């Protein structure tokens, strides 16, 4: 079969119909709506009401084999043996030198099978390492995934007649009025994800759209979801930082990316642990939030404290909830305290060509907490 020019997700037909501006973006080789009508209103919908977003771009790999537990305990920074079937955790995987290669959910399907959700492609590394443990990899990328986020996410899922009594990080295979789906709560935004076979994409989309109608559900594009991720203070591989790809890389360090909470200090056997522990004390950078006193986002820009460079921003966007530009930033520990006043140079634009400096303030992460679920 010839590879199609557009690699669409199972929801593409519905997404195309909803995409009023014909605005598309490529992520992990998959075509997705960058926004449907307006990214800001979509982000607000996810914050105040409920939104659904196509997350089929996340690579899903099933790891299977008698030694899968042993392999995963070596691969990721938490102990897979402690995971019971039907639950998941978030963890990192590191290079030999302690550099972060990826950070995502690992879900236990059975005694010898695990699902790995990968935001940035790293299949070669996982495959070559798994070979030594006779662990087989099965690509699950044909499946579609829809995230339902917002205070009414729970209500929407219930209204769609899906059993929604799932704990965060749990997942369950369900038969949903004639189609097989997996309902999960892997996401960071307190919502649900529904994973389905490619052919069931339109049915799933329609059912959720109808169930969410009375709660003001809107489809949210990639841009809106990126705003949510930023507001949640999560540094993402491939978007905020370049993940380590050399097998011995020591950069980026988990400490400098604020990802240490994903490392179980009692887990002894994971790859790169020795190097991570050795580099931990020396690492001067920390992850913090930055509020920019301007409407213009300033991604990947140096941050100055009294003229001295103390760090730089990562991803930066305008937050419709906070009504200002915000950014994740890596800042030296000396200037890391919330409230520290920094300056940065705003990027020139079509309207303003001269370089202007703006004030920025260090804030604690996350910018915004996950909104509480509201019962209808």
């Amino acid at each position, binding site marked *: 079969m010839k590879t199609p020019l557009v690699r669409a997700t199972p929801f593409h037909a519905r997404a195309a119909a909803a995409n009023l501006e014909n605005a598309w973006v490529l992520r992990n080789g998959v075509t997705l709506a960058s926004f449907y009508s307006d990214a800001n209103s979509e982000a607000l919908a996810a914050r105040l009401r409920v939104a659904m977003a196509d997350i089929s771009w996340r690579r899903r790999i099933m790891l299977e084999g008698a030694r899968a537990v042993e392999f995963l305990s*070596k*691969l990721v920074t938490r102990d897979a043996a402690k995971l019971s079937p039907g639950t998941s955790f978030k963890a990192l995987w590191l*290079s*030999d*030198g302690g550099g972060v290669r990826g950070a995502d959910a690992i879900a236990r399907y059975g005694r010898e099978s695990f699902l790995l959700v990968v935001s940035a492609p790293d299949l070669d*590394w996982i495959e*070559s*390492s798994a070979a*030594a443990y006779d662990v087989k990899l099965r690509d699950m990328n044909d499946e579609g995934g829809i995230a339902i986020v917002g205070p009414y996410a729970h209500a929407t899922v219930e209204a769609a007649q899906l059993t929604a009594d799932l704990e965060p990080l749990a997942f369950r295979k369900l038969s949903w009025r004639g189609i097989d789906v997996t309902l999960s709560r892997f996401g960071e935004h307190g919502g649900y994800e529904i994973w389905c076979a490619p052919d069931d994409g339109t049915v799933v989309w329609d059912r959720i759209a109808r169930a969410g109608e009375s709660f003001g559900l809107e489809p949210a594009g990639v841009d809106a979801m990126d705003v949510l991720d930023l507001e949640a203070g999560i540094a993402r591989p491939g978007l905020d930082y370049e993940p380590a790809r050399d*097998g*011995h890389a020591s950069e980026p360090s988990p400490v400098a990316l604020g990802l240490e909470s994903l490392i179980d200090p009692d887990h*002894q*056997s994971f*790859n*790169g*642990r*020795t*190097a991570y*522990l050795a580099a931990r004390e020396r690492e001067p950078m920390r992850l913090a939030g930055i509020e920019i006193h301007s409407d213009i986002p300033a991604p990947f820009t140096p941050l100055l404290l009294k003229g001295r460079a103390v760090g730089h921003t990562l991803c930066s966007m305008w937050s419709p909830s906070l009504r200002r530009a915000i950014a994740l930033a890596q800042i030296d520990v000396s200037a890391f305290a919330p409230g520290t006043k920094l300056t940065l140079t705003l990027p020139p634009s079509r309207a303003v060509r001269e370089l202007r400096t703006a004030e920025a303030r260090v804030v604690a992460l996350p910018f915004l907490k996950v909104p509480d679920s509201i019962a209808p």
Partner: protein
Amino acid sequence: MSGDAIVVGAGVNGLVAATYLARAGRKVLVLEAKDRLGGACQTTWFASSFRGPAIAHALTALDPRVVAELKLARRGLKFAVRDMPLVALRADGKHLTNGRDLRATARNIAVHSRADAETWPRFRRELFELARRMRPLWWSDGKSEIPSEIARLRRLSLAAWLDSRFESDAVKAALAGDAASLSPLAPGSSLLLLWRAAQEMCGLQGAAAIPLGGPGALVDALTAAAKIAGVEFRSGAHVSDIRVKDGAASGVVLDSGDEIPANVVLASFSRAGLLATKAGRTALGFSESVALERGVSPAASAKVMLALNAPPAFNGVAVPLRGRFLLADRLETFVAAHAASRAGRVPQELVLEVVVPTAGDPELAPLGQHVVSIRIGPLPRHVAGGWDAAKTPLAAKAVAALDRCASGLARHVVAAQVLTPDDIAARYGAEDSCAVTVERLLSDWSSRIRTPIKGLFLCSAASEPVDAVSGRAGRIAATLALREGAAK
């Protein structure tokens, strides 16, 4: 029985490491899997009344600091031959003797090429000078600056380097003989020649020497030094795994199931050998493990010892019997031999390195009789049909090749001992080696010796830039272990 330091493997490096640790006040226990100490560095009896070098038949790289610091001369280490010239034996009888006397060597080369005779003194001076500048990297631990010339040499194969300087096959082949563990076409093979030139024996740069009593005498001296320092030994103790607690070595497990606690373990494992243990699989990173599994396996070698009832006499030009003899007419012989052994075949033309231990040490054989030690390599580690079947033809082929340069030699053979790569692995456990690469040649010692497990250090020949009997890996591993212990 417990010790606060355990050394696994009583090869030269293990003995050296144990002695340094014991002299620094550590309680040291050496565990050797075999019954005899010394690993590949032994003098063995064969044919009832002859003795000869088990594997290594000439020392080229023994660290002079080890000799001095462990006072090996006082422990009985004497040398029978201190500076063996390299003799490239040629079928036409125009043998090329490459000795310390530059002018004599140049005269020898002039037979083959006048231009090469003129180039020789200059080339050797440059080689030795550059080699001396590599000693900080190859002799000591710590950051050292790599001379800028290396950037060019590391990409240059030995064949290309020699082709650019010399025209005669004889000279190129003689030089390639000192860098034979890699194909002359392989990247890094130039560095191998440089590494060889950086070594020192008996105070002479680039020399090869034989201890009085054979290589076993070195082990005897080292064992004596170790015992005086208070090292304890246990032989027949095969270590099957390393115990690790909280990321640090806490002891070793023997085949018998016994566990011996220790907070420092110095193991004569290569990194691939470490990966074969449970502790190693857990501790070594994925990148390193995958690289080790996919790594090229090094070429093997075989060993033949002949007992002669008369001194070997070489046809043609007179050559000193105390030399190291090389049987390879051309550089291409090495290339073809490496290619064949990579393909799992015995090379058509064998590359032989021959030493006559009795030339400098007549006591190794009954009066008037001689021992000839032949190293055959490169050879494939495994051959179709197995080495047992290929053993006799291999020895016959080697003797026939030698007989062409020393006619009558075959008639004087009264006994022979042949060790195939299989025999060497079974008897001396010398299988645990690792291929020479540019990375290995130019990496620093601590990256080869340290492991992700705290308190576990590797000190086998595979931790050296090039597999050799030098004791350096042992000395540096002991230094690193003591430094880590002091920092605790």
